[in-house]
């Protein structure tokens, strides 16, 4: 009978195993470290530029001075418009997938389409925005109503619509997850007292899925704020002397003008870092803009992740 205590062969296998596992661990650490390196680098280069003026003033002197407020405003307006379009559509699509469609062929085709949509290159969305929204829909409306060239040109409206489609898979996936998290027992209880499907959705499921849907919305906004390629020809501009707002006639109320072009943070970083005429002079501004953009998206992503963790934990506790 061989003793239970370790033999040479086994020790070698264990050592090799530990070495291989160490490699995996080290690789992961390095990868996450890359994130820290990236963020740290941007922060180091840009924190000095962040002043109150920087965040609230417009660019001056050929972009070498002043602030980036118009870009911030444009980014916020754009993403608000985008999420107003994407959220209802995405949530509805997810409701269909999860509550109405079975597990058959239809459901699988739709899911495949969602996955495909998620995999479309962002520049192709840009082309789509140009070819469909601006040229087809926009010009079509112009022609139909004899409006000249109103809808058929680059504008925040079309940029937001393009981004909305890009962001749709994010919303759909997050909403589906939120819907799945609502236990079947809740639905059964509602049906058992005679509720229709719509009533079950409206009164029981959706309220409980609210947190998850909110998470999806935040993730969608973060994604939309960071995209650049779809904006290249659908309405973004490097410098505009005015904000994309318009005053409602006869009132002191200003609203966002979706037919206007706009400035945007990620687009700004792109143009400034590749096409500026004074690269060294604008360097601090680019860093500052990049820092603002990355902080915004980072905080939104982080917020969504933490929020999701919190309500997932609450759900588990409630179930037990």
């Amino acid at each position, binding site marked *: 009978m*061989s*003793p*239970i*205590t*370790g*033999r040479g*062969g*086994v020790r070698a*296998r*264990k050592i090799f195993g530990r070495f291989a596992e160490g490699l995996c661990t080290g690789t992961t650490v390095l990868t996450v470290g890359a994130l820290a390196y990236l963020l740290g680098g941007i922060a180091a280069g840009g924190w000095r530029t962040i002043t109150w003026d920087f965040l609230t003033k417009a660019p001056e002197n050929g972009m070498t001075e002043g602030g980036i407020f118009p870009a911030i405003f444009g980014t916020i307006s754009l993403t608000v418009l985008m999420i107003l379009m994407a959220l209802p559509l995405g949530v509805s699509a997810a409701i269909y997938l999860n509550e109405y469609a079975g597990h058959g062929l239809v459901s699988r085709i739709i899911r495949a389409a969602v996955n495909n949509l998620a995999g479309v290159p962002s520049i192709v969305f840009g082309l789509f925005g140009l070819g469909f929204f601006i040229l087809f829909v926009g010009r079509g409306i112009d022609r139909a109503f004899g409006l000249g060239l109103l809808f058929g040109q680059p504008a925040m409206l079309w940029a937001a619509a393009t981004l909305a489609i890009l962001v749709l898979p994010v919303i759909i996936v997050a909403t589906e997850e939120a819907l799945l998290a609502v236990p079947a027992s809740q639905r059964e209880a509602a049906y058992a007292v005679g509720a229709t499907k719509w009533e079950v959705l409206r009164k029981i499921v959706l309220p409980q899925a609210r947190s998850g849907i909110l998470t999806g919305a935040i993730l969608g906004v973060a994604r939309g704020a960071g995209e650049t390629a779809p904006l290249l020809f659908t309405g973004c501009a490097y410098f505009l002397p005015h904000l994309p707002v318009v005053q409602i006639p006869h009132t002191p109320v200003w609203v966002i003008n979706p037919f206007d072009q706009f400035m945007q943070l990620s687009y700004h970083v792109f143009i400034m870092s590749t096409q500026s005429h004074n690269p060294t002079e604008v360097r601090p501004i680019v860093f500052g803009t990049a820092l603002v953009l990355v902080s915004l998206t980072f905080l939104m992503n982080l917020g969504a992740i933490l929020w999701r963790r919190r309500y997932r934990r609450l759900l588990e506790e409630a179930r037990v």
Partner: protein
Amino acid sequence: MIPLDVRSKIEIKGLSYWYGNHQALREVTISLPEKRVTAIIGPSGCGKSTLIKSINRIGEVAGEIRIEGEVRVDGESVYGEEVDLVDLRRRVGMVFQKPNPFPQTIYRNVAFGPRLHGVADKRTLDEIVERSLRDAAMWEEVKDRLQDSAYGLSGGQQQRLCIARALAVDPEIILMDEPCSALDPTGTARIEETVAKLKDRYTVIIVTHNMQQAARVSDFTAFMLTGSLVEYNPTERVFRNPENPMTEDYITGRFG
């Protein structure tokens, strides 16, 4: 208690076992005999699966456990500091409740263990695979389709494949955790035949909730209730003339 002329392979003394906060075993003391079949019976949750999992320490894969007392194989503690889990599990084989072959060919399933422990020569591997499949009463059925996927076999065949896989590493002890609960009567019958043949060479501990099976297959039977050992005697004694009234109640079906 077991007769004096039978050698004890596994000695468990005062074993208490906790999963997290839940105590699954309460000071169990039992001597399991060599080259015999011992059945462990009892209602759900009585700790019988936990008892055998404490021998090859497979419970630790799922999470944190705590024990008091000792488990010894051939006199040496299984929980000692110097104990090598890898080697322990080679010496103490296990067949699970639900057949769990790897999604690979029949041959590779059986050859997995030997390959792991250093056997590389193809001819030796072939011999081991054949021997193990014969011992599991499977060789005639699969000898012409060793390269087929294990998933093409029926439930009963898959379970016997798992037995062959466990035998391939030449263990001394075979633990079986309700091996027939996922099988139909034909599959069950074949497994029981196999178990009867195994005891010539191996020490078999089989957990079962099927009392008739225990009566058919085993030499010794242990009855457990809520983590404690209630009775442990030769099988005939346990089923004809149990020592403990609770055993009699369980066997006659007064509770289940």
